[in-house]
């Protein structure tokens, strides 16, 4: 699946998007997997209260299933307007 990062998550991880091969069942599983990869992921996901997720461009939650999902996006709380 495609994994996208925005704002300070993008800056901390160092890339805007990447293809991730995973068997993670939920968003939380995917986050745990990414955190185990490298310190920059560990740093980006260190405070999950400040991380929001969208699945196929719809706001979702950390306990949501990744079944059938093609695009996962991680970002901080939105500051539009």
């Amino acid at each position, binding site marked *: 699946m495609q994994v996208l990062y*925005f704002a*300070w998550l993008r800056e901390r991880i160092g890339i805007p998007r990447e293809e991730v091969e995973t068997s993670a069942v939920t968003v939380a599983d995917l986050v745990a997997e990414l955190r185990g990869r490298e310190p920059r992921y560990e740093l980006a996901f260190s405070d999950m209260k400040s991380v929001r997720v969208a699945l196929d*461009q719809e706001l979702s939650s950390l306990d949501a299933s990744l079944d059938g999902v093609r695009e996962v*996006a991680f970002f*901080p*709380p*939105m*500051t*539009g*307007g």
Partner: protein
Amino acid sequence: MSVSVQAEDFDVGAEMAALAEGRTDIGAIVSFTGLVRDMAKGAAISDMELEHYPGMTEKALKEIEAQANARWDLQGSRIIHRYGRLAPGARIVLVLTASPHRQAAFEAAEFLMDYLKSRAPFWKKEGTAGGGHWVDAREADEDALKRWDQE
């Protein structure tokens, strides 16, 4: 109903005229324009970088606009949100709502702004002399949303 996500500036007067074009049934148009301020938390702002999530942004704004149109009897609405690097004083966002009487237009405009503040995928980064920093989401913006659930 119409939504634009663009880097370019917009003309408030032209947008209002376009919304009312050829119609004589509209009684009120409410217009809100958000601007880049030159100060934040006591620090001078040199510019603002607005990042967004292409694809999801348009979708989220259209959903918010549809919600407002379902909730109020609007005769028209328009949302424009810019992205990219903006200087102090620059226009960031435009919300227009039209209705037969003013109350629906006022309320719907406020509803649209409250929703797009914390539900549209935009992120602001302010440039200061000490470097750039990401604007934190405000508790007050989240509270502003909740009041629409209670009504």
